[in-house]
C-alpha cells in the first residue's frame, strides 16, 4: 500500500479527517520550503501538497498565480522541486507528499524520466490539473508501476459517467473541487458539497478530499463533516505573500493557521 493509502487507513482507524495544506515550492524563496513542510507536519498536516510552479497557471486564482511567479523568479524547476522532496524525506519518511501542478513541466521532462526521479525523491502522488483521465494513459503507465498515485479532480459539473471514469483511473484519493471556479474562490456552498461527496462515494471506496475556497477553520470544520480530507491552499499562500519580506515569520504563521484548522476538524 502506498504512503497515501496507509495514511488514510490510520486516519480512518482513528476516525479522523485528513488535513492537507498546499504551498507552492520555492515561494517566496527556495530555502524556506523544506523547513516549512516540516513545520506544517508538526502543526497537524497529514499529507502535503506541494505546488510545482508554472508560467501559465490557468486554473488558479491571483493568489496562487503570484506564488508561481515568485518561485519562477528564483528559477524553480520541476527537478528543483523533486530535490526539495528528497531533502524533506531525509528526516520525514511517513508523511505523504503530492505534487500539484500543470502537465507541461512533466511532459517536457518526459513521463518515464519523471516517474523514475519522483519515486526516487519520495513523491507519493501527482495531480496535474490540466490532465483529464482521457489523456492520461501514457502518464499513468509511467507513474503507477513506480508506486505514485495519480490524483484526479472531480468538479461540480462532472457527470456520473465521467465520475466513474475518474474514480477508475485514480488511486490514493480523489479531489472534489468544491466550487465552479478557480483556487481561492469565496462562494463555498456546503450543502452542494455534501450532496456531491455522497454521489462520489457511490463510484469509489477511495477517500474523498475537498478543496477550493476553504479559507477558515469554520469552513474546514464544515467540510470535514462530509469529506475525508480538507485541502487548503490560497489562505496559506496569501499569508506567505503578506510575509514575503519577513520570511522568518512564515513557518510559525502557517503553523498557527493549520493548528486552528486541525483543532476545528478534530472536533468533528
Amino acid at each position, binding site marked *: 500500500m502506498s504512503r497515501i493509502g496507509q495514511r488514510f487507513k490510520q486516519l480512518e482507524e482513528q476516525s479522523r479527517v485528513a488535513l492537507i495544506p498546499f504551498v507552492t515550492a520555492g515561494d517566496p524563496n527556495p530555502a524556506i520550503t523544506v523547513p516549512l513542510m516540516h513545520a506544517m507536519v508538526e502543526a497537524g498536516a497529514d499529507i502535503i501538497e506541494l505546488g510545482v510552479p508554472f508560467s501559465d497557471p490557468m486554473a488558479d486564482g491571483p493568489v496562487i*498565480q503570484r506564488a508561481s511567479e515568485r518561485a519562477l523568479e528564483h528559477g524553480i524547476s520541476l527537478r528543483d522541486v523533486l530535490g526539495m522532496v528528497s531533502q524533506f524525506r531525509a528526516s520525514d519518511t511517513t508523511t505523504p507528499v503530492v505534487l500539484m501542478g*500543470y502537465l*507541461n513541466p*512533466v511532459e517536457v521532462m518526459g513521463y518515464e524520466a519523471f516517474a523514475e526521479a519522483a519515486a526516487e525523491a519520495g513523491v507519493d502522488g501527482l495531480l496535474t490539473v490540466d490532465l483529464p483521465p482521457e*489523456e492520461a494513459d501514457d502518464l499513468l503507465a509511467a507513474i503507477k508501476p513506480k508506486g505514485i498515485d495519480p490524483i484526479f479532480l472531480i468538479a461540480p459539473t462532472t457527470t456520473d459517467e465521467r465520475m466513474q471514469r475518474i474514480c477508475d483511473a485514480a488511486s490514493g484519493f480523489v479531489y472534489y*473541487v468544491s466550487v465552479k*471556479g478557480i483556487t481561492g474562490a469565496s462562494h463555498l456552498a456546503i450543502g452542494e458539497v455534501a450532496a456531491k461527496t455522497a454521489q462520489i462515494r457511490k463510484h469509489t471506496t477511495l477517500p474523498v478530499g475537498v478543496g477550493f475556497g476553504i479559507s477558515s477553520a469554520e469552513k474546514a470544520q464544515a467540510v470535514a463533516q462530509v469529506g475525508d480530507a480538507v485541502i487548503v491552499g490560497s489562505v496559506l499562500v496569501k499569508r506567505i505573500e503578506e510575509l514575503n519580506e519577513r520570511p522568518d515569520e512564515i513557518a510559525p504563521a502557517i503553523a498557527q493557521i493549520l493548528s486552528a484548522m486541525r483543532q476545528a476538524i478534530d472536533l468533528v
Partner: protein
Amino acid sequence: MPTEKPIDFTNMPDQRGHFGPYGGLFVSETLMEPLDELREAYEKYMQDETFLAELDADLANYVGRPSPVYHAERLSRENGGAQIYLKREDLNHTGAHKVNNTIGQALLAKRMGKQRIIAETGAGQHGVATATVAARLGLECVVYMGAVDIARQEANVYRMKLLGARVEAVESGSKTLKDALNEAMRDWVTNVDNTFYIIGTVAGPHPYPAMVRDFQAIIGREAREQMQHQTGALPDALVACVGGGSNAIGLFYPFLNDTSVNIFGVEAAGAGLDSGQHAAPLCAGTPGVLHGNRTYLMEDPNGQIIETHSISAGLDYPGVGPEHAWLKDIGRAQYVAATDDEALAAFHTLTRVEGIIPALESSHAIAYALKLAREMDVNQTILVNLSGRGDKDMHTVAALDGLKL
C-alpha cells in the same frame, strides 16, 4: 498492380480532438462537461440547414463575402517570377478574417442560450470582431487583454468600448495574449453556466481548433473556385502568416488534398530565429501542452512558457494550432519565418506598388511570397492570404519612422 489509396488530409481531428499526437483536451475537470456540450451543439448545428443558412446570409450581407481574389500584376512584374494573387480578407467588415469565426461562434452561443460572451485578444482584432457581433446580437461582452497590449493598441481598445464591450486589463504573467487567454479561461470556469467563450484562433481544447477552422475554411473554399475561374487552374503555392494559425488553416484546409499545391505557413521570426527574440514555435520550438492542447510551443528546457517577440501583436503567441503541428510533422505544409524587418519592407512594398496597406501580420506572408515568387516561373501562381488591413498598425509603423500620430 495495387494502387495506393491517397491520404485524406481533411478527416482530422479524431473524435477526441487529436491531430496525430497533437490537439486533444487538456483542461481542468470543471470545463470537461461544458466543452462536451459545446462539441455536441457545434456538431448538431453544422448539420442544421437553418443555422447554416443564417450563417451564410450574415457572411454575405454583414461581413461582405465573398472577398475578392486580386491579381497583384504590378507587384508580380516588379518582383519577378511567379504571379502573386491576394485573397482580400482585409476587405471584410472589421478589417480582417477574424469576423468569419466570431459570427459563427456568436450564432452558436445564441442557439445554446448563452447571454454572455467572453474573448481574449492580443492586437485587439479578435476583440473588436467579438465586440462587433455581440453588439449586433445584443449579448453582454467582456474582452480580456494584456495590460502591455492595451498600452500599444489604444485605438482598438477604444473601438471595443464604443461597441459596448468591457475590456479587462490582464496584469498577470507577461501581460500579453497568452495571459489574456489564461484569464478568459478563469472567467469561463467561474461563469460557465451563462457564458460562451469565443476563442479567436485554431488553438485551445477540442472542439475549438476544428470549429474555428471550419468557420474560417470559407476563405479557402471561395479562393479555390476564384483561382480556377480566374486562372483556369489551382494555384501552385499558398502562403499565409501563422500566429495561432486561423487565417492560414482557413486558406489551407480546402486545398489539403490538392497535393499539387505547395503550402507555406509563415511565422514571425522577430529579430531573427537565432536571436531567441521571435514567435516561431513551429520553426524553432518543441512540443508541449498549453491552453488545452498539445502542440509546438516556445518553452524553456523546464517546460515554462517563454515570452515571444514580434512587431505584430497578432503573431505574438507562444503556441500554434495543433493542426499546423500535425501538417508540419507529416510534411503536407512547410513552415518558414519572416523577420520584423522583412515584414516591414513587404508592408511598404505592397502599399506603394499596389495601393493596399496590409496588416503587419499579413505582411509576413507577403514577405515570404515575394521571396518564393522569385524562385518560381513567371507562369506559376502564388495565392497569399491578405488576412487583415494595416490601419490598426499606423502607430507602430509611424513610430519606427520617428513619428507620433
